[in-house]
């Protein structure tokens, strides 16, 4: 459940609404649930609301972990 996708905040207005970019499509969403989000942040958007700020550092570290595992698996073969 809970389809939610990463979106990049391009601008924020005074009504807690933001213009975001999701893979090339643009939409207006609400930041009411993530008032601390800033332009340049990635947020996770569910039904037009950001439900959390995406931790980019964690994302990169997770990917690095996957790369290490892939490397190890490769070396095995």
């Amino acid at each position, binding site marked *: 459940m*809970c389809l*939610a996708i990463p979106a990049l905040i391009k601008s924020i207005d005074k009504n807690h609404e933001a213009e975001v970019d999701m893979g090339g499509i643009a939409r207006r969403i*609400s930041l009411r649930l993530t008032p601390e989000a800033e332009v340049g942040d990635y947020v996770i958007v569910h039904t037009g609301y950001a439900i959390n700020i995406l931790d980019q550092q964690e994302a990169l570290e997770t990917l690095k972990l996957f790369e290490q595992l892939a490397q190890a698996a490769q070396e095995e073969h």
Partner: protein
Amino acid sequence: MKFLSEFRDSALAKGVISQIHHRSKMSARFMEFCGGHTVTIFRYGIRQALPETIEMLSGPGCPVCVTATADLDKAIALAQVPDVIIATFGDMLKVPGSFSSLQQTKAEGADVRMVYSTMDAVRMAEENPDKRVVFLGIGFETTAPTIAASVLQAEEKRLENYTVLSLHKLCPPVIKTLLDSGEVRLDGLICPGHVSAVIGSTAWEFVARDYGIPCVVSGFEPLDVLQCVDMLVTQVEGQDSKVEIAYRRGVQPEGNPEALRLMDNVFEHCSAHWRGMGTIPNSGLRLRRTYQRFDADCVFDIDPGPTREPEGCICGAILRGINTPPDCNLFGKACTPVNPVGPCMVSAEGSCSAYYLYEGGNRGG
């Protein structure tokens, strides 16, 4: 698509899959609670990639599937009130109620409109002052805060024609009920990623502590689910049981405090009827009295009439993980995505729908 596509990378997947195969020695049964995980697992054939030691089970985390027939009947009855516009997420349109569905009611002339967001529903209320907009509030803790935000927005705009029919449900109580029933034996729980983004990973502590079941919060991309399985296997092999977050880019232990605050502001817990599981105390949300003018249950006096459950439908048992769709006599015959009998077949993330579409239910499995 950034922060999405990378988590579908085939080369990276091979690494995690390989690690799971190395690690997994003991047989283990994991349940994915969330329908979104069910879809990912089926869509990417994840079960095929996993070693035979691991069995995957689908749980009742499909808000559409667990919406009580009587509640849906209420929404359908509301749709038939002349000045009402029902605003609903697409998911609910085709779910069969006792005698009809929202889609059918719409075809018969009711004003039922699909929206992507409650923001659209609030706007609809603003733009149609002579109508009353009733928003059909389904979903778990991921969605409930967005409905709470819409109520607050309606309050700020002093709207008198926006109400919510709150059918929201909470995840931890139903997991507890499932585990207490003893009907299903689990060695690990794949915890819902976006629900946890709101309620935090600490919400699952009770599962690890009181039931000794490892819990890992997972994201929704195939690599996320694989990583989660790997972490569960590690716990199982180490005879550990704790709550961990695999979906670290999306979830913190404390969740989203602002979302929780808004939810608490607008809603209070109540008991709720879960289709196929009966009434579970403190598992639903209803609007607080302060907001009763936004509560469709208070504003409208609706009697949907007697409820009728479809004969032969075992959605309940499937939702509880006791049976799988092929066990149902109706599966693939009387009950198909074109003519669904029960909600598990209608919902894109219901088990029956997933089995049918991805495992070839239309040829007898």
